[in-house]
């Protein structure tokens, strides 16, 4: 058992835990967050994606040890921000979601991209979400939503 300290959605946390636990399980079972989901368990589908120090990672293959002294943001934290509002409106306008299971992960991927590259090209958006699988939308409306958000959110990212 190790004391793991990290910031979760802006709040300082400490948990005494087996550091090999999957971050996904700690978020869902210990912190009762439901945004990150298990779609594949092998870091392939991105439904479990969260931000680690602002960058997208797959929480299903992140050991808790690796978030020690870092900041973790899930959709629950992200949805309190202005950037989320801009992205959300764009997703609604462009119909960028259908069943919604990949959507929290897509939002995380979009934030990870836009915070590094506020004015991405279409190709860069596609690469930015290339680790998030979607079976419903064929991706194009999600890409349009991210491009729209980057335009509408001038100065935010």
């Amino acid at each position: 058992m190790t004391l793991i300290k990290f910031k979760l959605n802006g709040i300082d946390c400490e948990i005494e835990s087996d550091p090999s636990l999957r971050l996904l399980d700690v978020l869902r079972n210990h912190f009762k967050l439901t945004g990150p989901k298990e779609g594949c368990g092998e870091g392939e589908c991105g439904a479990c994606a969260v931000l680690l120090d602002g960058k997208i990672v797959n929480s299903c293959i992140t050991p808790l040890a690796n978030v020690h002294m870092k900041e973790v943001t899930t959709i629950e934290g992200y949805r309190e921000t202005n950037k989320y509002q801009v992205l959300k409106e764009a997703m609604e306008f462009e119909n960028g979601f259908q069943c919604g299971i990949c959507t929290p992960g897509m939002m995380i991927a979009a934030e990870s991209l836009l915070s590094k590259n506020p004015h991405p090209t279409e190709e860069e958006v596609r690469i930015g979400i290339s680790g998030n699988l979607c079976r419903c939308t064929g991706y194009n409306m999600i890409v349009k939503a991210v491009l729209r958000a980057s335009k509408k959110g001038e100065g935010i990212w």
Partner: protein
Amino acid sequence: MKDISTSIPKMDADDKISGRALYVDDYPFDDLYHAKTLRSTKAKAKIKNIHIPELPDDYFVVDKFDVPHSNVVKMIFEDWPVFANDIVNYIGEPILLICGRDKTIIDSILNQIIVEYEDLEPTFHYVKSVIHKGFVKGDLNQAFQEAIHLIEYTYETGYQEQAYIEPQGFVAYLEDENKVTLIGSMQCPYYVKNAVIDTLGCKEDEVRVIQPAVGGAFGGKEEFPSVMACQLAVAVKKIKHPIKMIYEREEDMLVTTKRHPSKIILKASIDMLNHITGIKAHVSLDSGAYIGLSGVVLSRAMIAVTDAYTINHLDVTGDVYETNTVPNGAFRGFGAPQMIFAIEMFMNHIAKKLKVNPLQFRLEHLAHQGDLTSTSGVFRDPIIMKPMIEKAMEISGYQEKYQKNEQNNNFKGIGMSWFLHGCGFTGSGESKHIHAKVKLRKDEHDHIYLLVAAVDMGQGAKTSLSKIVAQTLELPMSDVSFDYPDTDFITDSGPTVASRTTMIVGGLLARAAQQMKDTWKPHEEMVVTMNYEQPDYIVWDEDTLRGDAYPAYSWGVNIVEVEVSPITYQVTIKNIWSVYDIGKAIDEKMALGQADGGISQGVAYGYLEVMEHKQGKIRQKNMTDYIIPTSVDMANTKTVIMDNPYALGPYGAKGIGELTLVGGAPAVALAIEQAIKREVHQIPATPEYIMELMNHDID
């Protein structure tokens, strides 16, 4: 009044984008037990003995001996056991559940169980027919006798895995001593409810099924959830404690239903005007170990034999072959994608053989209003395929690109597919089996509630059905609610399958809303129900497969442009154009979203998605090995929806759910053919297959 097609914000936007939507794995429960399945490791064997270690306190085995009434899962054809009987018929067949609190301990127990098998001889390939069907139209023998040419080809299609991002899962708990409640990822709450009632042998009000948010389904959650639900219902009655069972991704890929692999043999008689006078067809489907709904898949595949064309003489037969592999089932298209691939390639291959222009050749056979369908029904409604084809060719620059690619060895190709999809259940399903009923309730605040069983699995049923009701009642959307189905409060409007939700359920809701409007009592409770009535001119004979197989048809054109690398044989999808006739879009953006998603799956079925088995063991069993498109694999799409209102559909709407998938594979296969100058006879047309074709000079 506003045009209903004008897009509105979807009702579930807030929940889904914010991550607040609760899928089955998200529901908070105090103190849940978990269940995991022990599965057969043999393709076919007799179970001689099962050695179960001594179980710790509070851990349970649940198996066939615990089933109170019927160890068969109720579905269209009832041969699927809840728990395996003495003989296991596929690798992965469920034998028993281990239930308990700690998953690690459950895993450890499962690892210690020893099953003694006596090996039996498994069957693979198209050998053991368990269902045979046939229908005829006109006089094929005559047509063949008089033929100038007889041309025959064989086409094969592989598995396709639905690969919904949310794996299958259920939670079961006892509401009181006698009532079992199930929450699960599903398409058909009443399929689940009725299967559980049958397995438990209990009363109708002793089972409750609640739909949570569903993370994709595509047919994969049509009949399979009933299997899980029956197992958990038996378990929860035994251990009297809430149980959750969510499949691992690999488990889901290995043991849940997939699209039926097929082999289709087509033979055509050609007259001296280079016209197809008749087609003899045989469809073989691999159903896996149990039949389930394979018979209906076979029917749909056979009925799709002439696709968007009219051929006067037909002899169509089909067989469902049982093999010792995972049972196959519903997947968007339901037999049509297999057949439409075959017939579209066939039309082009015949044209090539006759040395005639394929476009011209196909146009000459295009169906017209008033023509007899493949099953000697009638295309009663206007068909606008000609303008749709023209539109598709215009927006894609098809003719110019086609000519350029034909004349050059540029490894580029453009392919066009034409197709239809029958809306609603095949044949007499709606009137004989489903008996759809809808219910609308108005409370004293004049708020409207839709009480139907339609499941929104991403296609937007929550919004589209609410929109139909709101528009009819001339109310704002905020006055209408459609909560996820809960069988304690709704009526059985039928399963969310077969492209029936907008047309049939939406149609009934429109009529119910109209009735509510006509009899409106302000500030008073009102309940209106409406039952499905088959229009009496729709006549269908299930035994001879003759008559109107569907009340209406939606139509489509897909054009796919590809580049093939002569070095790696990989295919790059450059562009996709589509034109659809779905009667009328209930919401344009939602329809375009369905179009994007459907074509992505259809095209990938044609060139990308590979699933094979070796002696009954599936080789591609996770998201790494089973390849579905990522955002960088998908091309830009341009889709046009052309109105062609259907008199009996709500606001003229027909079906859309499956239409947008069924044409993708032939469009991409035809494009690949042009790029590599070789004929494609099987899908997926992988780089490995393309390399084989290109390294053979003669086909």
